[in-house]
């Protein structure tokens, strides 16, 4: 063949030259930490990867490293800012320079890291998890479970080796109330890549005894690591939220609550706090029972005293009542007795008075009648003494009248006055026509008669009176 060839070293030298010429230094790169390890010298070696958003397929991969001197500084800065250890699975924004070494090939030397990018990413992921849980309607499920008044039987999910676990158990068993707690550990890896599935597995185990336990305690011993990624994981939260027993978390963290904390029934900062909570809750129950029973005792005693008082009050009330009643009746009776003589003597007095009035009246009426009769007798007497004299006067007058009338008719009297009576043939002449010449006429006067003959008769026309 005789083709011209260069050595690998030469090739690598050439690549190094190209990369160096490209001046790929101080470039901010977004990537995910695929793997991370720190060697004895304190240098940190990482795999930076990029996955496809939808398929999760690896799109890019590159080795990277942080020099020990730099790494100590960046790690502290990162962890203090994010509250999260720099670990696999985190998305980071790092400032890199591309380096090519003939022996090791290409690697990215990280000189700076921007924690705010990671924080933003973590927050976004958390939000996504929470949103998903909420959409599935499981977010509040565990919270809705009622915590027993006394949580006496406890399933613990923890790393068995964690110091936090030991302290927790110790605290429960030596509680000052003397309360007996029953607990069983369901071990789980609480950090790292397996944490998620390990915790989920532990929950599954607890589920087998779900009727036995009062609650599940999820605690993480306070180690150096602050790898809390698993507690933000969807699967852990999903298990936890839907667990039929209330879950109490004591994960121990500095910053925002993890998703696990958010969905747990009760969230406390540390395992110690969880133990204290359980002890105090049971203690409070004892206190409540003691208080209520003391209260009941008080009420019972008070009630009995009241009833005693009531009975005695009634007993003492009715004696005077009866006596008063009898007295009242006696008084009423005696009042009536008192009325009797008054009424009777008034009645009799009235009757006596009436009789006196009657006697008086009959007297005065009699006198009145007699007086009346006397008066009428007097009147009669007066009449009888006047009436006859009136009569006498009348009779007298009458006689006078009669006498006068008689006298007036006496013819003797008329003759005496000069009147005369003429007779022809013995007849009193009253009509001149009955007299004729030659008739014998006798005229009578008072003291004798005159006889003659009629010579002439003259007749008056109208008046033929004497």
């Amino acid at each position, binding site marked *: 063949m005789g083709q011209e060839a260069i050595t690998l070293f030469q090739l690598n030298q050439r690549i190094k030259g190209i990369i160096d010429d490209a001046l790929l230094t101080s470039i901010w790169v977004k990537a995910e930490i695929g793997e991370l390890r720190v060697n004895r010298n304190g240098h940190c070696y990482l795999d930076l990867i990029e996955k496809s958003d939808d398929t999760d397929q690896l799109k890019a991969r590159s080795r990277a490293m942080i020099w020990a001197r730099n790494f100590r500084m960046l790690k502290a800065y990162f962890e203090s800012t994010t509250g999260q250890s720099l670990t696999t699975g985190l998305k980071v924004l790092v400032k890199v320079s591309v380096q090519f070494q003939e022996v090791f090939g290409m690697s990215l030397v990280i000189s700076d890291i921007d924690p705010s990018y990671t924080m933003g990413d973590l927050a976004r992921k958390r939000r996504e998890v929470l949103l998903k849980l909420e959409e599935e309607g499981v977010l509040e499920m565990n919270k809705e479970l009622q915590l027993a008044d006394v949580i006496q039987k406890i399933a613990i999910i923890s790393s068995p080796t964690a110091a936090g676990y030991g302290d927790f158990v110790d605290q429960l068993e030596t509680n000052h109330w003397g309360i007996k707690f029953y607990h069983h550990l369901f071990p789980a890896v609480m950090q790292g890549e397996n944490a998620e599935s390990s915790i989920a597995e532990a929950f599954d185990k607890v589920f087998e005894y779900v009727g036995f336990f009062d609650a599940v305690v999820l605690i993480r011993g306070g180690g150096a690591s602050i790898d809390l990624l698993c507690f933000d994981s969807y699967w852990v939260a999903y298990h936890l939220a839907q667990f039929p027993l209330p879950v109490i978390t004591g994960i121990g963290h500095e910053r925002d609550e993890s998703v696990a904390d958010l969905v747990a029934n009760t969230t406390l900062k540390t395992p110690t706090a969880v133990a204290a909570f359980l002890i105090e809750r049971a203690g409070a129950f004892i206190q409540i029972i003691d208080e209520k029973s003391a209260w009941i005792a008080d009420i019972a005693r008070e009630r009995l005293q009241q009833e005693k008082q009531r009975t005695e009050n009634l007993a003492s009330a009715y004696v005077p009542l009866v006596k008063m009643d009898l007295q009242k009746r006696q008084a009423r009776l005696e009042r009536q007795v008192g009325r009797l003589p008054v009424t009777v003597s008034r009645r009799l007095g009235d009757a006596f008075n009436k009789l006196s009035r009657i006697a008086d009246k009959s007297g005065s009426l009699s006198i009145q009648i007699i007086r009346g009769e006397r008066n009428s007798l007097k009147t009669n*007497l007066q009449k009888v*003494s006047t009436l*006859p*004299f009136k009569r*006498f006067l009348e009779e*007298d007058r009458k*006689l006078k009248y*009669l*006498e006068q009338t008689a006298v007036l008719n006496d013819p*003797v009297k008329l003759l005496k006055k000069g009147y005369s009576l003429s007779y022809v043939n013995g007849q009193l002449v009253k009509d001149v026509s009955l007299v004729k010449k030659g008739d014998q006429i006798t005229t009578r006067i008072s003291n004798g008669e005159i006889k003659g003959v009629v010579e002439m008769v003259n007749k008056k026309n109208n008046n033929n009176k004497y």
Partner: protein
Amino acid sequence: MPKKKLSYNEAITEIEEILERMESDELDVDELSEKVKRVSELVTYCRNKLKTTEEEVEKVLKEMEE
């Protein structure tokens, strides 16, 4: 003179009868004057009777008042 038995009333009646006859011209002049005389007698009789009666009444009344 009227008879003793003649009552006051009879006397008055007789007088009145005479007066009636006088007025009706039934009487003769001679009878007339005779009747006038009779009337006069009767009147006197009556007057006496009245007087007597009055005295009697007065006497009775006087007795009663005593």
